[in-house]
Structures are given as structure tokens and as C-alpha cells.
């Protein structure tokens, strides 16, 4: 599959990434520079960073695959996922950025510790669960990268992992969030331009959207409906109205409160970015998502008409985008560009996740719990070592990916929702939420997500996404425990601008 142009283009892409890492390393003078890029991110770097932290390797492969297998009832994903970026900026970002700047927060755990006056228990619990979830997610990202490189170059799986792992780790370790955010701007640009360039070719080559929809309706009339009837009558027909409600909450809120997404709001330079960033993020990401989904529809149409054949694998639908581009764009140079686009989509999430794991360990666990007297240089060094350890351990896991990888990744997003959403929302907006309520809701949310996730996968399928049950349990726990325990001090509530408002009145 690979040729000289592909090698040159990917080589050039890697050189640019390393160059940015090297430039960024000169700007790192302390831990704040490393973790938050000195709170200096401009509008576009910040907005694209939020988009690309939400977006992952799944954006190209999984989204088109879902479109291929389920048709229009899955289109809500194209609204919910971009909305996660907007939800994060509006509901969490505005207040966290304002309070974080004033109080010097480095991570969202700093906020939780300050708001709930729990410098060790809640901080430790949220940091440990954040690290576990991020590591699970990271294994999935590395596996996706290796799939692309193996398919392109025909090199062994471990070589592909090693090449990508070393490059991402190098620029993340030396350049921290400066490097991650600026490389993400490049990667985001490549992803957006690439999808704008390629998706229309695939859609047109399949006969245009009207023809594609006619073919889809012939496969299953419900493929052109906004949702599947309830109860689900086939494995692909799971997007029933009740499932879509839980799916929407999972994607919009769960992704918004993921540690590698929400921490970005602390790094924005100015509060005024929060005015239009939600609309801009939704607009850009939404168009990309719709185009990728339409590509999945187009490939299904081409397959049904016998024009192309997908590989005979269990996850054949994940090859929809790749097969569509291969068919519609025989031009080698554009083909090489496609390789870079997929890598950019995956790498932009991977580096942010690695930095987040390093930050949560070095800042929240090492500096704030294990060794409060540690000087800044030591914390910076621990951050870098933690990034390397996170990369090494997840690369090792990705070489022999767990058999239930897809389940683990969905589990990871479900756990993010059940663990972080209630303490954050209640902390920001309800003055009655207490420290005990936050610890109990976070802990029980974590346990409930694990139990319901296991139940859905191994015992009996649930009618809605398993994370919704865990979210409800977490919310009820927060309310009940908070009502029977003592409120936090007025000082803590006032300092953290707690109350039923987004912008301070």
C-alpha cells in the first residue's frame, strides 16, 4: 500500500511534530507552563484543542462504520459528540476558567478539592479514577494508530506502535501542553481539510446523497428513519428512542467531563473566548462528523450495489471510510494525505491523554498528596516521567490488546460520565452539595458503572446505555448524602463562585 509519496508525507508530518515539540520545550520554565501552556492558549488553538480532545481515532473509522451498519438512526451521534465540546465550554468551562485563574488551579481536581474542602480524599479518588479511565482510552488510541500504520506499510504491529509511540511521547514530554496544543492545531487542520476534501468525492462516486438514501431505504426502510422502533429487532437496530436519550447524555455530558477534555478550559488565555467558541466548535466539528457519516452511508450503498467489497473481518464496517476513499480516490498523492489525516485524528487525542495522565499523577497525587514539599522542578520531572510510564505501559498493552478492547473503551466513557458528571455539576451549581455527597456519588458512580457495564455485556442487554443507570445512582447519592451532611463553608462556596448561574452575577 505504501509508496514513496506516502513515506515522504508521513515523514514530513512527523518532522513537523518533533519541530513543534522542540520549539515548545524552550517555553517550559515551570509546572504551570508544562500543564497549562502558561494559560496562554489563543482562541483558535483553544477551540481546536477542545474539538480534537473530544475527537479521536473513532471519528473517522467508528463514525463511518456506525453509518455503514445503522444508517440514519445513528445520525444523532453527529449532533451529540460536537455538542460535547460546546457543553464542556459553556457548562463547565466559563466558571472553571474564571475561578481557576483566580485560585491558580492546574487541574480539575484542584477545583474539586477546593470547592468540597477535600484536599486528599476527593482529589485522590478523582485522580485515580481519571488515570484508570484515561489509560484504558489510551490503549484504544494506540491500537487504532497501529491498525492504520500496519495497513499502510505492512510493517509488524509492534514496529508501528513503537514508531508512533516514540514520536508522540517525545514531543509531549519535552513540550507539555504547548506542544500538545500547537501540534493539535496542525493535526486538527489536516483532519478538517482532509475530510472536506475526501468525503464529497466518496459521496459523489456513490451517486449523491439522494441516490444513497434510496439504496439505504431498500436495505431496511428504517435506515432512513430518525430512529429504530422499540424494542430493537436486530443487533444493528439498537438506536431506539430510549437508547438515543441515554446515548445523548453519555456522549454530550460524559465526553465533556472527561479529564483530558475539561482540563483544557483552564488553559485558555481570555474569558471572552467562551462567547463564540461553543458555536464555532459545534459548527466545525459538526460538519466534519456529518461528512464522515455520509461517507459511511455512501460506502454501504456502494457495497449493496456490488461496486466494492469490504474486508471479510468481524469489524468490516470500520473499514468503510478507508474502502470508500480507496475506491473514489485512486490518486496516490491524495491517498498518502489520507494516511496523515487518520494519524492526525488519533494522535491529537493520544498526546492529550498522555499529558493528562502525567499531570494527574504528578500534580494531584505526587505533589498534593504524597509529597507536598516537593519543589516545582521535581514535580515537572515527575510529570515527564509519568508521561513516559503511561506511554510505555499502554503501548505494551496495545501490542497485545485485551480481547474486549471496544467494550473497555465504551466502559471508559461510561465511567467518566458516572464518576465526574455529578460532582462537577453539583459542585458548580448547587450550594447544598457537600464533601461527603461528592465522595459518595463519585465512588458509587464508579462502582455502579462497572456493575451495569458488566451486566449489559455479560449477563443481559439493557434497554438504555448502562451508564445512565450509574448516573442516576450517582445523582441520587449526591442529593441524599448532601441533605444529611453539613454544608461546606460559606468561604469555600463564595470563593468557587458556587450557585445557580454560569457567569457570576
Amino acid at each position, binding site marked *: 500500500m505504501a509508496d514513496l509519496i506516502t513515506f515522504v508525507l508521513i515523514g514530513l508530518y512527523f518532522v513537523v511534530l518533533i519541530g513543534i515539540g522542540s520549539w515548545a520545550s524552550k517555553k517550559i520554565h515551570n509546572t504551570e507552563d508544562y500543564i497549562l501552556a502558561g494559560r496562554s492558549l489563543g482562541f483558535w488553538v483553544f477551540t481546536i484543542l477542545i474539538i480534537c480532545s473530544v475527537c479521536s481515532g473513532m471519528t473517522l473509522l467508528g463514525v463511518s462504520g456506525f453509518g455503514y451498519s445503522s444508517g440514519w438512526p445513528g445520525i444523532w451521534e453527529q*449532533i451529540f459528540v460536537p*455538542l460535547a465540546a460546546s457543553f464542556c465550554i459553556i457548562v463547565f468551562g466559563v466558571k472553571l476558567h*474564571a475561578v481557576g485563574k483566580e485560585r491558580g488551579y492546574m487541574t480539575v481536581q484542584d477545583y474539586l478539592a477546593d470547592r468540597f474542602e477535600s484536599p486528599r480524599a476527593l482529589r485522590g479518588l478523582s485522580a485515580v479514577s481519571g488515570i484508570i479511565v484515561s489509560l484504558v482510552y489510551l490503549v484504544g488510541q494506540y491500537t487504532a494508530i497501529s491498525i492504520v500504520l500496519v495497513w499502510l506499510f505492512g510493517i509488524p504491529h509492534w514496529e508501528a506502535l513503537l514508531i508512533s509511540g516514540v514520536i508522540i511521547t517525545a514531543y509531549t514530554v519535552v513540550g507539555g501542553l504547548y506542544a500538545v496544543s500547537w501540534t493539535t492545531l496542525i493535526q486538527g487542520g489536516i483532519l478538517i481539510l482532509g475530510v472536506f476534501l475526501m468525503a464529497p468525492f466518496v459521496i459523489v462516486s456513490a451517486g449523491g446523497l439522494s*441516490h444513497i438514501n434510496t439504496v439505504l431505504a431498500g436495505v431496511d426502510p428504517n435506515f*432512513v428513519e*430518525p430512529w429504530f422502533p422499540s424494542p430493537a429487532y436486530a443487533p444493528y437496530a439498537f438506536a431506539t428512542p430510549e437508547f438515543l436519550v441515554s446515548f445523548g447524555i453519555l456522549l454530550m455530558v460524559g465526553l465533556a467531563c472527561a479529564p483530558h477534555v475539561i482540563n483544557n478550559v483552564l488553559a485558555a488565555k481570555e474569558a471572552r473566548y467562551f462567547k463564540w467558541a*461553543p458555536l464555532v466548535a*459545534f459548527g466545525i466539528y459538526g460538519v466534519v462528523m456529518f461528512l464522515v457519516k455520509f461517507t459511511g452511508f455512501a460506502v454501504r450503498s456502494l457495497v449493496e450495489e456490488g461496486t466494492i467489497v469490504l474486508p471479510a473481518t468481524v469489524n468490516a464496517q470500520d473499514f468503510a471510510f478507508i474502502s470508500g476513499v480507496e475506491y473514489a480516490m485512486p490518486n496516490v498523492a491524495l491517498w498518502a494525505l489520507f494516511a496523515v489525516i487518520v494519524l492526525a485524528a488519533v494522535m491529537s487525542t493520544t498526546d492529550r491523554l498522555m499529558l493528562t495522565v502525567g499531570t494527574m499523577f504528578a500534580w494531584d497525587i505526587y505533589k498534593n498528596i504524597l509529597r507536598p514539599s516537593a519543589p516545582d522542578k521535581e514535580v515537572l520531572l515527575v510529570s515527564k516521567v509519568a508521561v513516559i510510564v503511561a506511554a510505555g505501559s499502554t503501548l505494551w498493552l496495545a501490542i497485545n490488546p485485551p480481547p474486549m478492547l471496544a467494550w473497555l473503551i465504551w466502559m471508559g466513557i461510561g465511567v467518566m460520565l458516572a464518576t465526574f458528571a455529578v460532582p462537577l455539576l453539583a459542585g458548580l451549581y448547587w450550594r447544598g452539595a457537600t464533601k461527603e455527597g461528592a465522595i459518595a456519588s463519585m465512588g458509587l458512580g464508579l462502582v455502579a458503572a462497572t456493575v451495569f457495564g458488566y451486566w449489559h455485556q455479560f449477563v443481559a442487554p439493557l434497554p438504555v446505555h448502562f451508564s445512565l443507570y450509574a448516573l442516576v445512582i450517582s445523582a441520587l447519592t449526591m442529593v441524599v448524602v448532601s441533605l444529611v451532611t453539613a454544608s461546606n463553608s460559606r468561604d469555600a462556596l463564595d470563593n468557587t463562585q458556587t450557585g445557580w448561574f454560569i457567569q457570576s452575577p
Partner: protein
Amino acid sequence: MFFGLPLHTGLIVSGAVALVIVVLTLWGLSFREAS
């Protein structure tokens, strides 16, 4: 028909997208920059 889709599908999906855009625009217009 709406690009080969049943009319109700086209209206529901495009209506949802339009609603999100309107809400996010209203958010932008109501945001106070000074704070």
C-alpha cells in the same frame, strides 16, 4: 422527499441541528465579556 429521505426524517434532523445553532448563537449574544 428530502434528499431521498422521508420528509419527517429530514425535518427532524435538520430541525435539531438548527435548534442547536440557535441556542448556541443566543448563548454567544447573551455572554457578558466584561466578567
